C-alpha cells in the first residue's frame, strides 16, 4: 500500500469524525468544539500520525472547531486462545498462541476506531 492511499483513507475517516462531532455540538447547543478523543486499536487500519495531519488541515475549514485538538488513545491488540485460555499480544505472535501453539484464536481487542468523548464549550451563563 502506498502512503498516498493511506492518507486518503485517513482523510475520509476524519470527515466522518468531524461530521459526528458537529452533530453532537449542535444537539448540545454548544458554540465550539475544543477537543475530540478517539480510541484507536493497534491493528485498526487507521494510522494516528496520518490522522492528525489530516485533522489539522480539515478542522481549519470548520467554523466551530478551528482550534479543536485531536487526542488519540491507543488500544493494545490482544488475542484470546480458545484452546488454552491465554490472552496474548497479537502483534508479535499473530494467529498462533505462544503458550500452546494453537491457531484457534481471535482478536479480543485492538481493532477499535471509536469516538470516546467530545469536549464542547459555549460562552453563555
Amino acid at each position: 500500500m502506498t502512503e498516498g492511499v493511506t492518507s486518503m483513507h485517513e482523510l475520509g475517516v476524519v470527515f466522518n469524525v468531524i461530521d459526528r462531532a458537529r452533530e453532537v455540538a449542535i444537539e448540545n447547543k454548544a458554540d465550539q468544539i475544543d477537543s475530540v478523543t478517539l480510541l484507536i486499536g493497534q491493528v485498526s487500519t487507521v494510522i494516528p500520525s496520518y490522522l492528525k495531519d489530516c485533522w489539522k488541515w480539515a478542522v481549519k475549514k470548520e467554523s466551530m472547531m478551528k482550534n479543536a485538538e485531536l487526542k488519540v488513545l491507543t488500544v493494545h491488540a490482544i488475542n484470546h486462545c480458545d484452546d488454552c485460555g491465554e490472552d496474548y499480544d497479537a502483534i508479535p505472535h499473530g494467529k498462533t498462541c505462544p503458550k500452546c501453539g494453537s491457531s484457534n484464536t481471535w482478536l479480543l481487542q485492538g481493532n477499535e476506531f471509536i469516538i470516546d468523548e467530545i469536549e464542547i464549550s459555549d460562552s453563555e451563563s
Partner: protein
Amino acid sequence: MKNVRVIELKESVFASNDQEAEKVRRQLKEDRTFLMNLMSSPGSGKTTTLCRTIKDLKDSYSIGVMEADIDGDVDARTIADTGVSSIQLHTGGMCHLDAGMTRQGLDEIGASELDLVVLENVGNLVCPAEFDTGAVKNVAILSVPEGHDKPLKYPLMFQVCQAMIINKIDVLPYFDFDMKKVEEFARERNPEIQIFPVSAKTGEGFEAWESWLREQVDQWNGR
C-alpha cells in the same frame, strides 16, 4: 464565562455509516433489488469477470453496474458495451465508497427498476472492507498472480465477504500459487466463505459462480 462540557460518546466512527447502510438494504429489499459489492486489488480482472457474468445473466435479470473509481470512466465504457445500464461514480479522491455515496448511485441508476445491481468498488483491499455500502452480499476477487497469501495480509476483506472468486486460473502453471493454501487461509478468517476458482478469459469455473449468484439474487428478490 466559558462553559465547558465533556460529552461521552463511546461510539464507533463507522456507526453512522452502518445505520445508513441498513437503510439502503431495507430499501433494496422493498424494491426487490439485489446489490452485490465487488471488491479486489487493481488488475485482478474485476471488469473482465463482470463482463462475462453479465453476458451470461442478462437474459434472466435486468442488470445495472455502478463503477466506482477515483477518476476516469474507462471501466464504465467497457461495461456499457455489454448492453446493460452503467454509471460511473467518482469518489473524489477517496479510497472507498460509503453507504451515502452508494445510495446516490442507486437513485441515479434507477435501481428500483432493476433485479441486480453490481457495485464495482475502488480497486483496493483495505478501505472498502471497512465501509458497509448497504450491499446484500460482498464478493472479493483475488487473482493467481497476486499470490495465495493475500487473505493473510488483508484479513478484514475476507471476513466481510460471503464469496471469493479466484481469477486467472488459466495461468496457474506459471505461478507458485497454492490453491489449497489460499482456501485454508481464507476459511481461517471466514469459515463460511464460498470459493470459486475461475478464468474470466476461458470461462472455466463460471457455472458454479453464476449458479451461486443466481441463487442469492432469487432468494433476496423472492422469485
